[in-house]
């Protein structure tokens, strides 16, 4: 038994050693880890502060404060439980069947069940550490607000461990069953799309419920009724309900009451683990073997579409080839285009938010307020745009991957290549940006000068943001990364977000003065005057120049860096 356990941990060695080597040898890694840790702590603190305020508010409501707090805990645990199952589904697929080092271990005499157990452990860690870390401040808040005894904090790990283990095992169980009967790569695509759709749908439903109304005291009685009506979350068959019972009992210092549900969750977790081991023994190797066969089945390609698309593009053969390649790579990768759903919903919610703004409740004049919001909307829309750019544009150079040598060895100059990448992404992004501005202005009822100022600023800001994304993406390429989404989460992506936020911030600062003066003149029905006009032209011109210069500067830096590779 000891040998088996030590062998399981031995299989995790390359990962630990790899992390250690990165820290020791790769320049800047420690600095990056420290930066991420700092940001993570700030985020953690933010969650703690935010949730503490929310829970203090709800728990302090006379009469039903405690019931409400319990209901909220139930909802949180159910959400975590679902999240954990989903994240394990995706992680287990990669760890059990798609990792590149699996062949190396499978060809060794290490028993398949030991390999299966090691991957089980790895999946549990990968899929749950973030959920655990983010949920801790919530449980600390409960402890502090309800003045829990020390035992509550000490026993937290003994409740969390089986909870995560059970949810993770459920996710792994579903993965094992799905992969036993369906092709693995298609299962992965399907799961990614389904989870994206689910998250998007939940987000949309949540937003359309207008949760901001819940903090209105007049609505509180209906809130409690609503929460009470959600009887499903209290079903005694749900492990999240058992955990809620345990937490509540521990909060009150009632160990005896926690005993039964604690036994229930531990025994369920162990039983499910044993069940998964049996399933693993039966299916693991065969599913892994089938995962290597996926690439033999070709896609059904319609060549007429290529011909039609090729004719449609009035470009030189090299550029037409690049456009066709990028378009095909995008629509053939389901995990890529499915993220557009999220984008679409974000836009709908974004525009919807402007239609439900309680402008009438403000003591300020509505016309003034609308124009101010329209101006500040530049910052918000800019932020949305930079988030989209960091996800889709920033990885544009890295996405060339191992095939980048083909571009480098072709007669196509790097300058033309980067310019092409810029145009390829600028067109859809500028359309998105203008849609955001035009629709929100329409919702607000803003027209005239303010409308044109925000449209023009957004146009040139998009130029700057896309240029920055292409340039910094070239400066910090991650060509070894298999997942395009992960590319944006590295240091380069972080730097891009900082630069783009600075660009947006400076834009707003530069334009705020003349816009304010113009609005004041409008409000008082006085002419803007020559000074005001020149100020406006100067600041707008300066902003446009700054956007163009920053975009071109970043692309130049990126090109030079690529030339040196």
């Amino acid at each position, binding site marked *: 038994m000891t040998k088996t356990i030590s062998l399981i941990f*031995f299989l995790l*060695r*390359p990962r630990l*050693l*790899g*992390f250690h*080597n*990165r820290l020791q*040898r790769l320049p800047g890694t420690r600095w990056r880890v420290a930066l991420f840790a700092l940001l993570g702590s700030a985020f953690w603190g933010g969650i703690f502060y935010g949730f503490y305020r929310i829970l203090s508010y709800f728990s302090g409501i006379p009469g039903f404060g405690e019931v409400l707090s319990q209901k909220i805990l139930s909802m949180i645990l159910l959400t975590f439980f679902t999240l954990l199952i989903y994240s394990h589904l995706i992680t287990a697929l990669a760890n059990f069947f798609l990792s*590149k*080092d699996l*062949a*190396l*271990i*499978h*060809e*060794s*005499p*290490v*028993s*398949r069940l030991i390999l299966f157990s090691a991957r089980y452990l790895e999946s549990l860690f990968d899929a749950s550490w973030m959920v655990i870390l983010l949920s801790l401040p919530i449980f600390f808040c409960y402890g502090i607000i309800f003045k829990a005894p020390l035992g509550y904090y000490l026993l937290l790990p003994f409740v969390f461990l089986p909870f995560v283990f059970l949810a993770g095992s459920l996710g792994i169980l579903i993965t094992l069953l799905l992969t036993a009967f369906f092709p693995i790569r298609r299962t992965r695509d399907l799961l990614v799309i389904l989870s994206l759709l689910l998250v998007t749908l939940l987000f949309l439903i949540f937003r359309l419920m207008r949760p901001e109304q819940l903090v209105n005291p007049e609505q509180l009685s209906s809130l409690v009724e609503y929460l009470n009506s959600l009887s499903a979350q209290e079903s005694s068959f749900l492990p999240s309900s058992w955990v809620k019972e345990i937490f509540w009992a521990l909060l009150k210092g009632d160990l005896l009451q926690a005993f039964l549900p604690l036994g229930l969750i531990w025994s369920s977790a162990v039983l499910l683990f044993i069940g998964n081991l049996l399933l693993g023994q039966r299916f693991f*190797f*065969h599913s*892994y*073997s*089938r995962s*290597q*066969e996926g690439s*033999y*089945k070709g896609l059904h390609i319609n060549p007429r579409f290529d011909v039609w698309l090729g004719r449609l593009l009035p470009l030189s053969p090299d550029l037409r080839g690049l456009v066709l390649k990028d378009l095909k790579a995008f629509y053939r990768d389901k995990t890529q285009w499915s993220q557009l759903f999220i984008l679409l919903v974000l836009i709908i919610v974004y525009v919807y938010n402007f239609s439900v703004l309680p402008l009438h409740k403000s003591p300020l004049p509505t016309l003034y307020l609308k124009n101010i919001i329209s101006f500040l909307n530049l910052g918000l829309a800019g932020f949305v745009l930079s988030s989209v750019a960091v996800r889709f544009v920033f990885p544009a150079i890295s996405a060339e991957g191992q095939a980048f040598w083909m571009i480098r060895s072709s007669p196509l100059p790097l300058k033309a290549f980067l310019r092409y990448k810029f145009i390829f992404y600028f067109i859809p992004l500028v359309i998105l940006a203008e849609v955001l501005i035009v629709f929100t202005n329409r919702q607000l009822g803003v027209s005239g000068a303010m409308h044109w100022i925000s449209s023009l600023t957004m146009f040139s800001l998009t130029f700057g943001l896309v240029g920055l994304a292409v340039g910094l993406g070239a400066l910090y390429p991650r060509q*070894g990364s298999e997942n395009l989404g992960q590319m944006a989460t590295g240091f380069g992506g972080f730097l891009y977000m900082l630069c783009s936020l600075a660009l947006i911030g400076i834009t707003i600062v530069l334009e705020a003065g003349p816009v304010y003066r113009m609005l004041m003149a409008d409000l008082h029905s006085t002419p803007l005057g020559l000074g005001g006009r020149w100020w406006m032209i100067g600041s707008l011109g300066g902003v446009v120049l700054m956007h163009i210069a920053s975009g071109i500067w970043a692309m130049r830096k990126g090109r030079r860096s690529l030339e040196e590779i």
Partner: protein
Amino acid sequence: MIKIKNLTKHYGPLTAVKDLCLDVAPGEIFGFLGPNGAGKTTTIKIMAGILAPTTGDVELCGLSILKEPSRAKALTGYIPDRPFLYDKLTGIEFLHFVAGLYGLHPKEIDGEIESRLNLFDLWDWRMELIESYSHGMKQRLIIISALLHHPRVLIIDEPMVGLDPKGVRIVKHLLKKESAQGTTVFLSTHTLATAQEICDHLGIIQKGALIAVGSIDSFAQEDHWKAQGLESLFLKLTGDLEEDGLD
């Protein structure tokens, strides 16, 4: 030593290996030849225990790879055509890890690792991350890792890819030495000169089926071999002799 019994592998509608039967004697170097897509790598992956056959079985040292995979693999060394190496590990860390998979402790094998790394000119690189190695250096490292546990059967898929002339020479010498010590070598290659030089027996596979098998001496009796060597015979057997459009 190696017994392939009615091995068949289907990939959906495609039959990659069709009812393959083969025996390789102890201490023999067996060259497994065939055009691209003939089923060589599929056969080798099944032998190495990383792919399940549709039907049939492979016995290594009398142990079924399906029924007793761990025991069979403990006696086998496998060198894949496109090996995976952990980029963020150093050469020596990688070798220690692979040795650990075969139940060996670093102390037991450090002497051997040193001599093998010296033989392959990798000793000075042992503390460097594998990501800084060239393709040939990675290939040398994977060859060392497959030999650390002194396998009785060596299964090799394209051993010479990426190796420089010195590396090729070392590998050829090493395989002959291992074979002389009783290790059975099952070698798939496109380098026909290498096959001709070091193999005792040859098998030629095409479209998943074995179309010719025999000792190197029996192949050498064929007219095509006598006239132009193994390459000409191989092209004749696989029906690729007419090279339309080559001019």
